[in-house]
């Protein structure tokens, strides 16, 4: 099945946040446009935490997809050729955790280039928290100690990104501050909402209806930052989006 490059960046939510609603997970499965998609989970940012992998298999049960995961901390077991495995997927789901640790580990195994290839060949990429920040060129990551840190991501999307945006006021302020002082303009997304990019352009924002919004933040030209709230399409329990591939191709053409 031919699909355009697509990335779905969650502000937070999906099975990994333990939310009772599986709307975002259902949404990304729908985007693959195939009845039983191959879905691979990358739990790298959590250090391949066992409980997280188990929750993935529970949420992405074999009944509706072909689930698998890659552990980069136990390469001697499991998937032998991560690149080939990733390229054979319909959907790659990246879990949360430390985005700094995630990027370092990926680079050490060449997953940064493998994921770019997968994206270019139409494998849908998605994830929340660290699994969202990683796709962008820049991001403001967690508050380790003192000031939040600017992180350089994979740069598939030429924007910046902040997650849990409307949910953590300090994060919102730090993101605006970073953009005011020269970081690329970008998207702040709250828990329960998700950005869908086709190619490098935003195609739509979807949400559970209980999220605190999604925003485009850019410099105002006077050393400050402005925030523009984005319209959100509320996801319905049983309504899948217009078929991923079709909608995607339209957006690419536009």
């Amino acid at each position: 099945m031919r699909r355009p490059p697509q990335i779905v960046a969650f502000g937070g939510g999906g099975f990994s946040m333990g939310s009772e609603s599986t709307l975002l997970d259902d949404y990304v499965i729908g985007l693959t446009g195939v009845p039983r998609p191959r879905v691979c989970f990358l739990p790298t940012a959590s250090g391949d935490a066992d409980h997280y992998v188990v929750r993935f298999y529970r949420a992405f049960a074999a009944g509706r997809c072909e689930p698998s995961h890659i552990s980069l901390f136990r390469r001697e077991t499991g998937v032998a050729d991560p690149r080939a495995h990733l390229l054979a997927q319909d959907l790659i789901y990246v879990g949360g955790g430390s985005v700094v640790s995630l990027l370092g580990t990926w680079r050490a195994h060449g997953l940064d280039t493998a994921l770019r290839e997968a994206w270019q060949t139409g494998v849908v990429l998605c994830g929340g928290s660290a699994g969202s920040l990683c796709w962008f060129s820049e991001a403001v990551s967690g508050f380790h100690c003192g000031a939040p840190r600017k992180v350089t991501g994979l740069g598939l999307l030429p924007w910046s990104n902040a997650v849990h945006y409307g949910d953590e006021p300090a994060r919102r302020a730090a993101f605006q501050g970073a953009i005011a002082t020269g970081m690329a303009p970008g998207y702040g997304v709250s828990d329960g909402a998700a950005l869908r990019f086709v190619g490098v352009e935003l195609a739509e924002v979807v949400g559970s209806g209980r999220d605190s919004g999604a925003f485009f933040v850019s410099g105002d030209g006077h050393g400050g930052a402005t925030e523009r709230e984005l319209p959100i399409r509320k996801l319905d329990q049983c309504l899948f989006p217009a078929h991923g591939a079709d909608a995607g191709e339209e957006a690419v053409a536009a």
Partner: protein
Amino acid sequence: MSRMAGAAGRCLREDPRRILAMGGGGFTMNDRSGVLDRLVLELTGRGVPRVCFLPTASGDQREQLMRFHERFSLWPCETSILSLFHLQRDRLDPREFLLSQDAIYVGGGSMRNMLAIWREHRIDAVMREAWEAGVVLAGLSAGAMCWFEGGISLSGGRPEAVKGLGFLPGSLSVHRDSEPQRWPAYQRAIADGQLPDGYAADDGTALVFAGRHLVECVASAPSQRIVRVELEAGSPVQRPLPLRVLNRAEAPASVGRLAPAPIDAERVAVEELRSVRVLRQRWE
């Protein structure tokens, strides 16, 4: 302790830098004998040392964290764990935290991942600072090979040479007895010049370094071996090194005695405070 007299003894006294590199064993491998773990504390020369476990190579596997607390609750010490996956939750400055320790215990797992993650968080530079400040650096497997110029790791699935931090000269291969598939890869890597000469160590053994000098080899059982591997006329030749078998009943601080910490009133007061705190923690 006559073995440690002479040049080695001088090294221990004059150079504050300590590394304990284990071929395997210790609490993470469910080793019933705690002698290597105890040696980590003894090398600090402190009454109630602060010991931090760094489980990066395993991805902070929960079982390892539990075993760390279980094992080190046996001795007077202040334990902590530094997770590079949860810095946000813990709100820690890893540099400050590591430099405030008396010993850093690095767990095993993927050497490649551990070093990549350390680099991103600039822990490699912090480790050098800690080493030079006299914080004991200890570890097994990935946590032992990382201090050398390189080692043989399964990080990529198959055994292969991986570059280390190079604090210590030469290379190290671990689990010599329990994972024999590493041995041919190690020999090849040395023959090809991918790795410099070095050591292959069994589970339960460890090399003790003062600065860049090997001071002694220790073991938890007499049957265990550490071999020196050197390239001679194009092929690697191995020779077993003398080992001191650690005594289970030995009182703590036997090695610490050789490197007495300078005594000052403030430190004594702080140590007392710490021991009171440790006792309180234990009873609460």
